[in-house]
């Protein structure tokens, strides 16, 4: 049997505030993502989705349980991983093209080659003309696109994305989804995709994992049997899609009670 790309086994994560208050963000959470699988995670806000991604990257070790990436326990940051942060994390002192070129440069690529590659990605995320703008001169959605290009350019084998498209308009979002699917199918990357948009989750993923409200654990898992390549815009109207959507929706509804 192939080792899974990501294997979280029975992990919990506690946060203790300086005042001594304990918040349990994840409880006995297990998740396996196979190589080449596209896994979407949905769940109520604050249920521990970002925390989960943080554990996979190694930025944020679990309190208990084991996290493995390609069969290896996670001890440091794996260069195979790409991570699109939920919050803004582009470098404010670098302009668009330098921000995008930084990954390859970190990984030892020649500077001018990296810039050429970055120029290509600037175009792909629709920022042509803004190469020399600094992040503070961009709109929120444009900054997000810089972050996406920054991650995509590294062609990571594991791609973690934390609500990557929520700041984008529908059209740009569709474009970025296509880029993502292209990258994914081309490189057979494993993707963990956090979103609040259930339809987006279904349209993109092989499997949708629904988390229970915090402290999060897996509530249910849905395999998405839609054929690939999918036409995202069309798939949306099939009965299968609508059924799945309704089911997940009701799953989630149970979780949120204010």
């Amino acid at each position, binding site marked *: 049997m192939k080792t899974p790309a990501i294997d979280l086994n029975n992990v919990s994560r*506690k*946060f*203790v505030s*300086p*005042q001594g208050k*304990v918040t349990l963000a994840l409880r006995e959470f297990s998740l396996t993502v196979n190589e080449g699988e596209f896994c979407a995670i949905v769940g109520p806000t604050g249920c521990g989705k970002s925390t989960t991604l943080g554990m996979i990257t*190694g930025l*944020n*070790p679990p*309190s*208990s349980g084991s996290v493995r990436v390609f069969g290896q326990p996670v*001890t*440091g*940051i794996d260069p195979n991983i790409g991570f699109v942060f939920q919050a803004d994390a582009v470098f404010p002192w670098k302009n668009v093209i330098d921000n995008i070129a930084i990954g390859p440069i970190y990984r030892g690529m020649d500077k001018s080659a990296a810039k050429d590659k970055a120029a290509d990605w600037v175009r792909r995320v629709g920022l042509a003309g803004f190469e020399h703008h600094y992040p503070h001169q961009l709109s929120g959605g444009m900054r997000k696109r810089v972050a996406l290009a920054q991650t995509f350019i590294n062609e990571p084998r594991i791609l973690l994305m934390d609500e990557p498209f929520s700041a984008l308009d529908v059209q740009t979002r569709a474009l970025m989804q296509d880029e993502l699917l292209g990258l994914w199918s081309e490189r057979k990357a494993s993707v963990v995709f956090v979103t609040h948009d259930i339809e987006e989750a279904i349209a993109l993923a092989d499997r949708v994992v629904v988390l229970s409200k915090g402290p999060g654990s897996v509530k249910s898992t849905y395999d998405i049997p839609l054929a690939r390549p999918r036409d995202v815009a069309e798939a949306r109207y099939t009965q299968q899609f609508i059924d799945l959507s309704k089911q997940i929706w009701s799953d989630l509804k149970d979780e949120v009670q204010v």
Partner: protein
Amino acid sequence: MHAMTSADSAGLPGDGGEERAAVARAVNHRRMVLFLRVALAVVTLGAWEWAVERQWLDPFFFSRPSAIYEQLLTWLSEGTAQGPLWKELLVTMEETVLGFLIGGVLGIVFGIALGRNKLMSDVLSIYIKVANAIPRVVLGSIFIIMFGLGMGSKVALAVVMVFFVVFGNAFQGVREADRNLIANAYILGASKRQVTFTVVFPSALSWILASLHVSFGFALVGAVVGEFLGARHGIGLLIATAQGTFNAAGVFAAMIVLAVVALAAEYLLTALENRLLKWRPVQFVEQGS
């Protein structure tokens, strides 16, 4: 600086086994730090003593740790030429603390006021720059003329040592305040004053605290320099006397006394900092560090 503030963001006290492991790791780290600190001190002092023994260093100028230790013992048991050591220390401390407080408060007030008011800062900041270039020794004699030979002139010297550092940081801290937060406060209905106190000041706090760490040492230096220029009591006088009598051990012993004071102040400042900045995330623990 605040060595103990940043906890391992991973394991924090709890009930699990791996949490105990994390606590153990933290304890280990602390032990390691303590060991290295002591080791460093021991090695330095040992090398010093040894170099003197070997006649590579002239004890006439550099004294030697054993002689310094003896000098300290003598001062502690028999007092100094001017009186008991703690009394001398008290005098210097009083000047230092007063100078530190006054200079700190002035620095913060001016820094924030100028940081918040562009016209004022455009007009005044060059004069503050100019003032900062005045040699403190010269100021010392001017202060003696203005404030007399009493505590006033020493406090004033400590103030001018502290002021500029705190001012500079407070000023810049204000300018670094997040524009979005300021805008949000205005929109939520804050007056300019309220923005200053509830947004700008907290934002600038880490800047201000950083400058306070540095400037306590400066306040000490200011007080001591003031005492050099004429005083009846104080560690500065102790140093001046020791220098005047070629008592190198005395000079170093007095510096050790100052060092102890500085460390005590550092400890208090760190405690204050932890209280004031308790809203911040614990420091990021990086892999491989």
